[in-house]
């Protein structure tokens, strides 16, 4: 019966993928064990009531200390780790690519240049990530402590004890169609990181005494950045509210990303994007002529821009695919 599957899904999607199938199978056979041969919906409800709130059952399985870090904080933590991993992969790729390029062009200084810039970049990114991570955690812990009903037998939203009837409005979308909360956190997290990075760069913070980017150019773009950040917040809130992919969500999401990509390309293709002083700094530091060094920051910039664009395109296509999955 559908209700049993829904219940089991409510439990297992909160568990680690490794044990999901096993737990699902065991719960299903246990629930069926408790039902009479010819059972009715009321029988199912009775048994499910005995099993109780699926989120509580899942908590029992998870056996993690939940006193300070609850589900949301934990998810945020995990997705932050994933973002960190992604950043390192991108940077490692950039280093590898420039390393190969250096080998071809025979310029030994280039590889050192790439690793040093990446080193600075890693430092800056880590610094920002640490900040965002810390404040993000604090907000979530605060929300959880203050905002959420703490009685573990009652629903966090309504304060009522759990009933099997709650299943019908807790999950009406197929699992594959839903927008995961983690992806929304991730997207929100990225917007914050990028905005902070942008304003840091606009205020002329870079390696050595120099600014990396042309501050006045960046400040020219500031209104757009603020608009984009606001739009990103809006899109994420909208995705959160709807909770699953449908045509409107996909179109809203895709248009936002399109605008973001246009902005990114416009910004990256400015000739005066990098501060001349930064170029001088690089050529002095690595003992290369200003003319030959000028293209490398752009190469790295475009590698990053293109990887961002491809990940956005991939996500958008995925969204369209998910929107096409039928409701049942």
């Amino acid at each position, binding site marked *: 019966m559908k209700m049993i599957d829904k219940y089991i899904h409510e439990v297992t999607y909160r568990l680690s993928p490794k*044990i999901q199938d*096993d*737990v699902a*199978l*065991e*719960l299903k*056979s*246990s629930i*069926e*064990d*408790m039902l009479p041969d010819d059972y009715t919906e009321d029988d199912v409800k009775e048994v499910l009531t*005995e*099993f*109780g*709130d699926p989120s*509580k*059952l899942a908590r*029992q*399985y998870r*056996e993690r200390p939940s006193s300070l870090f609850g589900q949301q904080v934990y998810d945020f933590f995990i997705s932050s780790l994933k973002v960190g991993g992604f950043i390192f992969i991108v940077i490692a790729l950039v280093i590898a690519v420039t390393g190969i390029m250096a080998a071809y062009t025979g310029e030994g200084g280039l590889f050192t240049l790439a690793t040093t810039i990446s080193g600075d970049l890693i430092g800056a990114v880590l610094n920002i990530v640490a900040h965002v991570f810390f404040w993000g955690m604090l907000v979530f812990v605060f929300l959880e402590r203050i905002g959420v009903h703490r009685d573990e037998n009652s629903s966090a939203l309504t304060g009522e004890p759990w009933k099997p009837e709650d299943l019908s409005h807790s999950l009406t979308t197929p699992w594959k169609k839903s927008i995961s909360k983690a992806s929304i956190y991730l997207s929100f997290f990225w917007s914050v990181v990028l905005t902070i990075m942008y304003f840091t760069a606009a205020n002329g913070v870079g390696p050595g005494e120099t600014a990396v980017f042309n501050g006045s150019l960046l400040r020219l773009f500031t209104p757009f950045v603020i608009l984009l950040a606001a739009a990103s917040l809006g899109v994420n809130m909208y995705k959160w509210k709807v909770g699953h992919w449908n045509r409107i969500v996909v179109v809203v999401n895709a248009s936002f990303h399109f605008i973001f990509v246009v902005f990114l390309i416009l910004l990256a293709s400015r000739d005066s994007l990098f501060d001349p002083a930064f170029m001088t700094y690089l050529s002095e530091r690595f003992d290369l002529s200003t003319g030959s060094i000028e293209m490398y920051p752009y190469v790295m910039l475009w590698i990053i821009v293109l990887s961002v664009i491809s990940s956005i395109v991939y996500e958008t296509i995925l969204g369209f695919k998910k929107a096409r999955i039928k409701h049942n």
Partner: protein
Amino acid sequence: MGDLLHSLTTELRRGSLTLAVLSQLKTPQYGYSLVQRLDEYGMKIDQSTLYPLLRRLEKQEVVSSSWDTSENRPRKYYVLSEYGEEIFQELKSQWQRTTEELNALLRGEKNNEDD
């Protein structure tokens, strides 16, 4: 008072549940058969407590599990491991000692009241 009493009772029972479950796992049991066996002795256990508990015990290698798929409904059977048997015996004597001590204490309290 109801809420407090409830949480105190839950706390009191929590430790004894493991012992109760282990005592029935000398022969392989699946979830529902275990519930019934405990029920025969008047021991009520929440479903939402039992299955996670069994999985934890399995992870701690106190019990081992196997799927029986020969019947029309697949069932996961749990049985005490060798290590689990030792743990169980140890836990059992601890429990007996504790209940004796506690009983003596409670009797003492009664005597005081009589005074």
